[in-house]
């Protein structure tokens, strides 16, 4: 048996790795995906006042601090039994959609863009944001930068600081919004909606106009028929900040819908000896291994999952895109037939981007956001709370327990990448099976196509830290497992 290791090594030792085990006849025997985890987070939280956690947990992730701030704030509200005023709810929702508008933009243009705009087989030196700019022009790059800056400005106005917001507190928000700030937010919202329209055009011109890319999205190489989970509002429309968790089966039928606080009744975690990261699965279906289908408890929690569990989008442009998405990929615009192609996640992300831009404008125009009533002091302490939001890369749960003084005794987090751990492994395996056959020479293009399978999930690798050089070097070593002899090596960024 041969073993191929795709080993992304940043300065964080023990970083994410992909192991591909190849039989002598060239067929893929198995595939493991490993990610590192930070040690001691729970111990770090225990003994601290729980209200500090919504500021500390923003440090867990350099990419989605805002998601942790919101999930944490909701969990802390619950610990104190606090109901937040309507205006505070709208402010948090507005901040969160501003964050989404920025984060989804970065992902689509910087990460997915190179694959679709430059092409998956483009040389690595061209297959990056600089290659994207070379193809679509500097104006597009300037629009991306402006959109990102607009998202950051929404966070700064409502969250008090760029990048790492600080204004959510148990019972509401700590910072009021002035009329002038509301006017600025409305202008930002208008610009964001224009950017959303531009992004729809890019999907049309670059992805849908290219038959090869549509085939790639629809191909079995990148497909998985699993359960899906995501938050929905009272009308079963996609919601990032609030609602119930809805789970649908591989055929699109509702499996269950539950209050976030009840997550432990529905989710369990499988452990494998080779990975620190657990594999959440649906408790009532059970763990049947890394397999597709209605009998396997594996689920996905991604932008595509959120679309699959919902009955539509709450804003008009996004709803039109939702219908076009399902009409194109499933032949049914209603969304009742789920889409399973992993690469369709990128288009799903654009549908959500459109929604977030429209939501920013809609909420910015709501005069209630300038209300003085943004905080109701908590009256007591419950001692336990769960907060769930949709992080851009998947469902995010914070669960805290405290003593009678609000001092943390337990903290548990399930982050988006953990939710998708089993599905990521399966997608990599499926991609590798479709691409690696007996005698296949592993080229840069092959590596990239395998990477594309997990890139669609935008997994967080021990994301509390950044990386100075920032690249993710890849080293791929093909071993003959019996002799241990190195047969082939391929490197990127090493």
């Amino acid at each position: 048996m041969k073993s191929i290791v795709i080993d992304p090594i940043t300065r964080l030792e023990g970083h994410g790795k992909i192991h591909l085990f190849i039989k002598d006849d060239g067929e893929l025997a198995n595939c493991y995906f490993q990610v590192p985890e930070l040690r001691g987070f729970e111990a770090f939280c225990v003994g601290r006042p729980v209200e500090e956690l919504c500021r500390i947990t923003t440090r867990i992730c350099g990419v989605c601090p805002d998601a942790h701030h919101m999930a944490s704030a909701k969990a802390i509200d619950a610990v104190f039994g606090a109901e937040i005023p309507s205006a505070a709810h709208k402010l948090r929702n507005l901040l969160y959609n501003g964050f989404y508008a920025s984060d989804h933009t970065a992902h689509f243009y910087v990460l997915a863009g190179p694959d679709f705009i430059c092409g998956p087989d483009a040389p690595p030196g061209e297959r990056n944001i600089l290659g994207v700019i070379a193809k679509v022009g500097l104006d597009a790059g300037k629009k991306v930068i402006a959109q990102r800056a607009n998202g950051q400005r929404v966070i700064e106005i409502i969250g008090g600081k760029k990048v790492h917001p600080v204004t959510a507190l148990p019972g509401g928000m700590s910072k009021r919004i002035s009329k002038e700030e509301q006017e600025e937010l409305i202008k930002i919202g208008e610009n964001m909606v224009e950017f959303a329209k531009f992004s729809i055009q890019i999907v049309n011109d670059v992805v849908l106009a290219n038959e090869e890319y549509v085939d790639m999205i629809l191909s079995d190489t990148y497909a998985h028929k699993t359960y899906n989970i995501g938050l929905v509002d009272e009308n079963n429309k996609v919601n990032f900040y609030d609602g119930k968790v809805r789970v649908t089966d591989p055929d699109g039928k509702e499996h269950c819908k539950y209050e976030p606080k009840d997550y432990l009744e529905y989710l369990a975690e499988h452990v494998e000896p080779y990975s620190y990261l657990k594999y959440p699965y649906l408790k009532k279906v059970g763990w049947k291994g890394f397999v597709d289908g209605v009998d396997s408890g594996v689920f996905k929690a991604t932008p595509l999952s959120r679309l699959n569990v919902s009955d539509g989008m709450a804003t008009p442009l996004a709803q039109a895109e939702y219908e076009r998405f399902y009409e194109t990929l499933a032949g049914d615009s209603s969304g009742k037939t789920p889409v399973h192609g992993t690469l369709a996640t990128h288009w799903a992300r654009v549908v959500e981007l459109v929604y977030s831009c429209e939501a920013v404008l809609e909420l910015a125009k709501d005069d209630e956001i300038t209300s003085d009533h943004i905080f109701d002091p908590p009256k007591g302490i419950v001692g336990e709370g769960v907060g769930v939001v949709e992080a851009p890369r998947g469902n995010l749960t914070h669960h805290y327990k405290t003593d009678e003084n609000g001092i943390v005794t337990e903290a548990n987090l399930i982050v988006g990448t953990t939710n998708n751990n089993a599905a990521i492994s399966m997608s990599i395996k499926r991609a590798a099976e479709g691409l690696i056959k007996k005698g296949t020479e592993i080229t840069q293009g092959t590596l990239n196509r395998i990477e594309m399978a997990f890139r669609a999930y935008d997994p967080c690798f021990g994301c509390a830290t950044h990386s100075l050089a920032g690249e993710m070097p890849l080293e791929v070593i093909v071993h003959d497992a019996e002799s241990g002899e190195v047969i082939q090596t391929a490197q990127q960024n090493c």
Partner: protein
Amino acid sequence: MLKPILILCLGNEIVSDDGFGVEIARRLTDVGNIPESVEVVFAPIAGFALLDLLAGRAKVLIVDTIRTGNAAPGTLHKFAAGVLTPSKNLTTSHQISLPTALEFGRQLGLDMPDDIDVIAVEAEDLETVSEQLTPSVQAAVDQAIRFVWDWISRNATEEITHAN
């Protein structure tokens, strides 16, 4: 008015040795006497977000943590950012590197600094959630502070009154 010279301390104050940058920033700002032309910023960020901080500056010193595996923990690496090359392969949205961000900014016509120097400490622990630096990295703080003041005195546009 944006200050032309930036000391950009990167890192994460709750991940052991990744708190090196914030420790340097704290020491610099506690002492005071930072020249008018110089701004000291601690930022737990990377990638695109760096563009906002770098654009419009004349000279930048980045203080960070690194793991080369080729040096003892606490070793200070000093180099120009130009020795790093733009990323050839983006795998997650974390992977927008400093040189890629710089090149991207330049292509967009932003006024990016010509000179970026880096001082990075070889880390021992970047996995444990803790507010403490490991002893070897802690021991490098004083030497790094001296290097930063020396860098400031060579690059600030005014006379330096600090005697460190």
